[in-house]
């Protein structure tokens, strides 16, 4: 089972996947592609991953959430080009009550951003491109016109 997909992600399908008659609260998070980043207009972006490790780390995160809270969780992350406004990542967490559903949903999205080996290359309105790096000053590593990277 992979969390990775090159197709559009349907949040309703993930919500349905974790729903069950004994689970009254379902929290869902959708991370969508924004049209701006660090003050620059974004016209497109592309995600890539270390696929096998991304699946292994994601499976560990989901198991952690399901052991910390009485919930069922589901996760999907998109790879390849993703149009502005479409979902890049979706998390759904269902529990008996909303406290655990919200807590588990938040935990999963934070850990995914921190630990799952997925990368994002953005293309801007001025034609330039950059690799997103949350740890770098400015958050970006520009890609030069000749395709090389600084």
């Amino acid at each position, binding site marked *: 089972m992979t969390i990775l997909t090159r197709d559009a992600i349907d949040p309703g399908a993930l919500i349905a996947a974790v729903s069950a008659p004994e689970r009254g609260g379902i929290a869902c998070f959708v991370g969508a592609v924004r049209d701006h980043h660090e003050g620059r207009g974004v016209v497109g972006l592309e995600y890539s*991953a270390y696929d096998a*490790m*991304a699946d292994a780390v994601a499976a560990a995160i989901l198991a952690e959430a399901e052991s910390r809270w009485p919930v069922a969780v589901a996760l999907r992350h998109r790879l390849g080009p993703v149009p502005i406004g479409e979902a890049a990542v979706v998390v759904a967490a269902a529990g008996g009550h909303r406290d655990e559903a919200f807590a588990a949903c938040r935990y999963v999205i934070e850990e995914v951003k921190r630990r799952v080996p*997925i*990368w*994002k290359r953005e293309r801007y309105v001025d034609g330039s491109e950059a*690799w997103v*790096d949350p*740890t770098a000053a400015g958050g970006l590593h520009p890609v030069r016109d000749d395709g090389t*990277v600084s």
Partner: protein
Amino acid sequence: MPSIPVLLFARYADLLGTSRVELPLTDGCTVADLVRHLRSLPGGEAIPERPFVAVNMVQVDASHRPQPGDEVALLPPMAGG
């Protein structure tokens, strides 16, 4: 001398112009030695001295000693979500 595959991703792959290199695995070779080797290749100097390194998909320290048959990967800072 045995060699070991090192996978490169995202910006690191762009820097070295490839997503995979085979490096010699000298006796007692550590992750730090492999990173040093990579940074000596054309374009490799922009790789940080202590990048995130996974061996067989698990994060390891710079002092870790990969074994023949292991899969080493250099991972730029995660940017998923």
